[in-house]
């Protein structure tokens, strides 16, 4: 005969078990409700650079001044890129997790356990996770049911995945670039280089462009992975190229202190510009402007046609992120812990915000929000005050 105390004991056990199960499953899952797409009309930021040309140009203006919308402190440092799709922030950390947060509500949607540091890209309802190190380094997560669709060994990956018409392009650290199918992760072709690759691939007009530690910028045929041309610089190329389809240029910096504009069809140098420091991050492209930062603490804006200097802005330390163009504002992060907003046409500082630590994560915009991460594991999401005032 069951007594009251037995019931109490059983209830307690059920609660404990239920909580454990919830915690267990809650520990490693990201599930997106396909019907929760409140902001479908807003442009998404599905991969590093915002688009396959990696132009770091968001079509909507996030206007300063900005105010803090929310700050989160994570257990580990956030990796170099954040993506935002349908109001969900996705990012990997440098230790074992991928996170999803709602940018509007600030609520954590979920996290996924990985083995090492990782970064993300989005295609259809799949979250592509590239791990920096390990046995299986490229994963496709079905965001509707939290299942891994496929997981493959793509080699160590220090770059960002590229989604192009024919599939996923990964430039792997140990000297090879590969094309995989989105559906199954099947490798379609491989291109081998002479040295390690940290530069992320960019796409333009049927071609794949990337830099290499051997100092060269390569152009491959997207359909078969064959080299079309390569362009040699004097130093390792860690930066990711930006592709301007209008000007038919591949725009990229090198550790030899020079920024190059290369004809995307022929591989010939159109112009180059010498800074006073290494150029290790991506450039941003907007109309006739190309903007990039350097380890000499300067942000440069050049005329995309001829490389003439339009303006430069000096920070207190190394510019450690790619610039983000949002309307007529350029956002950038620096090792001086500041997030800057600079006027695109004049190069004058409009606004800045001092974070908790050095900023190495590229700022990303979505709707009226701006997200960036700083050292010591902080995620910042800002919101435009101007928009709010308009709404009041």
């Amino acid at each position, binding site marked *: 005969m069951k007594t009251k105390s037995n019931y109490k004991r059983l209830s307690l056990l059920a609660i404990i078990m239920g909580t454990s199960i919830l915690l267990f499953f809650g520990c490693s899952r990201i599930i997106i409700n396909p019907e929760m797409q409140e902001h479908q009309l807003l442009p998404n930021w599905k991969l590093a650079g915002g688009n396959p040309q990696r132009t770091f140009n968001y079509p909507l203006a996030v206007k300063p001044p900005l105010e803090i919308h929310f700050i989160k402190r994570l*257990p*580990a*440092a956030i990796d170099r890129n954040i993506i935002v799709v349908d109001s969900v922030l996705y990012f990997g950390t*440098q*230790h*074992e997790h991928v996170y999803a947060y709602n940018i509007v509500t600030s609520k954590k949607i979920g996290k996924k356990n990985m083995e090492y*540091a990782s970064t993300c890209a989005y295609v259809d309802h799949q979250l592509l996770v590239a791990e920096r*190190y390990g046995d299986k380094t490229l994963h496709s997560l079905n965001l509707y049911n939290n299942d891994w669709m496929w997981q493959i060994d793509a080699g*160590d990956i220090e770059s960002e995945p590229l989604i192009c018409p024919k599939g996923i392009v990964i430039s792997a650290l140990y000297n090879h670039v590969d094309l995989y199918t989105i559906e199954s992760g099947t490798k379609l072709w491989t291109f081998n280089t002479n*040295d390690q690759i940290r530069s992320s691939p960019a796409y333009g007009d049927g071609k794949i462009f990337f830099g290499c*530690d051997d100092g060269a910028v390569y152009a491959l045929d997207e359909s078969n992975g064959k080299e079309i041309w390569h362009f040699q610089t004097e*130093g*390792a190329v*860690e930066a990711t190229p930006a592709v301007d389809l209008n000007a038919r240029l591949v725009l990229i910096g090198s*550790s030899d202190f020079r920024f190059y504009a290369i004809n995307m069809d022929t591989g010939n140098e159109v112009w180059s510009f010498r800074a006073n*420091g*290494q150029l*290790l991050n991506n450039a941003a492209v907007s109309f006739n402007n190309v903007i990039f930062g350097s*380890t*000499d*603490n300067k942000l440069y804006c050049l005329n995309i046609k001829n490389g003439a200097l339009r303006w430069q802005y000096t920070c207190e*330390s*190394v510019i*450690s992120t790619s610039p983000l163009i949002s309307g007529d504002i350029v956002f950038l992060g620096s*090792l*001086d*812990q500041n997030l800057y907003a600079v006027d695109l046409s004049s190069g004058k500082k409009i606004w800045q915000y001092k974070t908790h*630590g*050095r900023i190495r994560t590229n700022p990303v915009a979505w709707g009226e929000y701006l997200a960036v991460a700083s*050292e010591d594991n902080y995620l910042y999401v800002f919101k435009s005050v101007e928009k709010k005032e308009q709404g009041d």
Partner: protein
Amino acid sequence: MKRVSLIVILMFLLGASSSSIYAQYYFGRNKIQYNSFDWHILKTEHFDIYYYPEMREMAEIGAAAAEETYTFLEDKFNHNINRRIPLIFYSNHAHFQQTNTTPSLLPEGVGGFFEFMKGRVVIPANGSVYQFKRVIRHELVHVFTHSLHYRVLKNHRKLNHPSLPLWFVEGLAEYWSIGWNSETESIIRDAVLNNYLYPTQYIYQIQGTFLMYKEGQAILKYIADTYGEHKIIQLIENTWKTERFSNVMKLTIGVDYKEFDKEWIYSLKKNKYPLLEDHDLPEMVTNKITEEGINTKPAYYRLNGEPYIAFISNRIGYSNIYTKPLSDVEEKIKPHVIIEGERSSEFESFHILKSKIDISKHGVLAFVSKSGETDVLYTYDIKRDKILKSFKWDKLVSFSSPAWSSGGTKLAFTAINFAGMSDLYIVDVPTGKLFKLTNDYYDDHDPVWSNDGRTIYFSSDRTVFGEYGNYNIFKYGLESGEISFITYGPHNDLTPSLSPDGKYLAFTSDRDGVFNIWMLTLNGSEYRLTNTENQLKKVTHFTTAAYDPVWTDNNSIVFTAFENFSFQIREQEDVVETYEQIAEVTVDSMTLPNSFWTIRKLDGKSSAERVKYKPKFNLDIAQSQVSQDPIYGVSGGAQLAMTDMLGNYQYYFLIYNNAQTRDEFWKSFNVALTRANLSRRANTSYGLYHFAGRYFNMYDDFFYERMYGGYFAVSYPLSVFRRIEGSINIRHSDKYWYFDDYSRKALLFSNFMSYVKDNTLWGPTGPIDGERFNLTFGNTIDIQNSNVNFYTIIADYRKYFRVSQQVAHAVRLMTRYNHGKEATRFFMGGSWDLRGYPRWRIWGKKLFLISNEFRFPFIERFIVNFPVGGMAFSSIRGATFVDVGNAWDDKLSDILGSYGLGLRFRLGGVLVLRYDFGKRFYLQNAQKPFDPDTFSKQDGLFHQFFFGWDF
């Protein structure tokens, strides 16, 4: 050689009031604050620069260099330092040795350091602006490396990964501050050609040595040249992926240690072996003059018509000045010591690698020694074995390389003043009058007189290439005051030496890669650099290096050769003939006439603010511990240490409790607070304490004692080797003996005075030369209840007789004496004193101990290799010993002793493991110690394992 800290005094004081604690380290040399610096802070964009007003210009030069380096490294590392970096500058090495930022005594070879706890960088200037800037860059590379590595590991949550290997850390600092220079080239050539290069797999065997620095530099250069400079930072950035650095290399450049060694060493051999085609090892083509130890800075003279040389050597461990006949090329005659160094305050250091010596035609030696606060310039009659004169001047701190005029009445030398500027001086020896020849930022070295006394030749960085650390030879016209070039170019021309007939000038130059001896002709006519009249020729073609050439009067040159990672004196004969036969002439053409370099200081671009230094404290150490003892139970506590930025003011806080029940909490509460002031020559400390708890010793058995009170202590160094210490301690003592059920209250007042001397030279496991002693007098009295009143005498004398390089005979004579009411007992027994007897099982108010020990090497060095790596151990040493002693209260009735053998094994640099075995013996009648009837010994053997340095 440990510096006594006031904390040790505190421990001693506290111990003296209960059981005796005679720690092994109540000797030690002294770090003396001769100068009271008026510290200021120069705040630049990224740095807080601590300096004193006398060296303000040098501080501004250093500040500009630091900011320039910061920009350079920010780019190189793609990283920044997000805190202000403290840089502490001293204007010369003598001042640097006074720093309290580290408790260690700083040898001359330390050119600066980066200290992790407060992130301080501490650097002395040394007269050369280039060297000062180079050391700043070296240390800032450490700051950036440490910061980036820490950040990489923290971001990936891998802070448990090991640090970067030391060869990488120091190699990178050298590579990014020097690049590559002739000194590094010489050392690497020497290592390759003499087969002592250590591969990366085994580089741990030379951990911390100068060779490791240079090999690390060579490895980093090879990686940059072969794989690209960007790989260096990638090596740091990949350390989160794997714990073993060999694997990090594999991930980054595709080769692990073993594979890397193969290609690196092969490339070195390919590069260096062909040198032997037209270069020679010095030992193969010159006469050997010395063989053992490091021997440098030769000077030539004749004694009773026979040719002799004098030189500085550390062949026995201490640096001395020696002489020997030049004809003794096989070193059959042991060099004769004429001046002993490093044992007395008159001759603390001869600057063995920096300062030349010289001997006049009258046989008078001129040399420099550190002596107290500054260097002193001495003259010494070799024949009469007598110091003739000594010179020192206010505001001149360091001297080097005195050179006699031909008449033997004047000495030219280099001196660094209080501001850190290096200039040439002349002293008129009979009158002591001082003349300053130069007065600028440039570093002027190694003067030598012309025969007519009108010209001084010297080496200086006042050339346009001086900005890059290059030196050329100049001449100074004493009548006109004009300085003109003798050599010119982007290389180093050093230590000029004039031939006896005045026709030739020899000097050492690295203009073709490493230092060799070059000569030119001084033909008396107006000297012009662009013609070939001077017939500049390279006379020696050594693979490694030659320094300090000195002419004899027999057509030969004696010099210091670097080979087999050592410095030896060698002789090159028939110099003039060799010179005349050389066809190839080098011409130095001056492309930029009369070009000197302008030293950069802070300009308008960098903002700077100057403020007076006020001590601010932050935490250096905070640690806690919990321990469990089967007798005393559990205790737990914490200790904190706080110091100011300069380390001059220190606070220590200790708290712990060993209560076993709640009731006992306040009865078992222990707290102590100490403040120490090390800013002045007399170091002082004072503090308050409350100690309470149960104790035990073999005499008192278990007792409870509660003590609270305060103390004041002072330590005044008379010299580096001797000091006087005093302390006063007043405390309330409430003591209860459990088994006797007896309690006693007292208000105890103790005062002690000690005189300590220590000039010992240490081997791997303990002293092997010199002597040390501690003589202490004290009195403890109960000023309230008269329950306690005793006086204390401690005399501990230890002498070490050097038998050979590594063999010594050590003698210890010790007595400790307490006499009076409730005189505490001393304890003896165990591996640290009377061996063979249980530790601290012999006690009494008086004790004596006599130890004799013969110390010798046993195993020089051994290496244990594991699959995942290896460990190198320095020597295992042996000893034979005899100890006699005892402790007693009223009457000494018998004498205890032991004899036996021992082994000492140094583990990890600070821990020495000891094993002794032998026999105990007894002299049962202390009144008749030599009566064989009273002698008995133990059956069997005793065995004792313990740790600790030799006495």
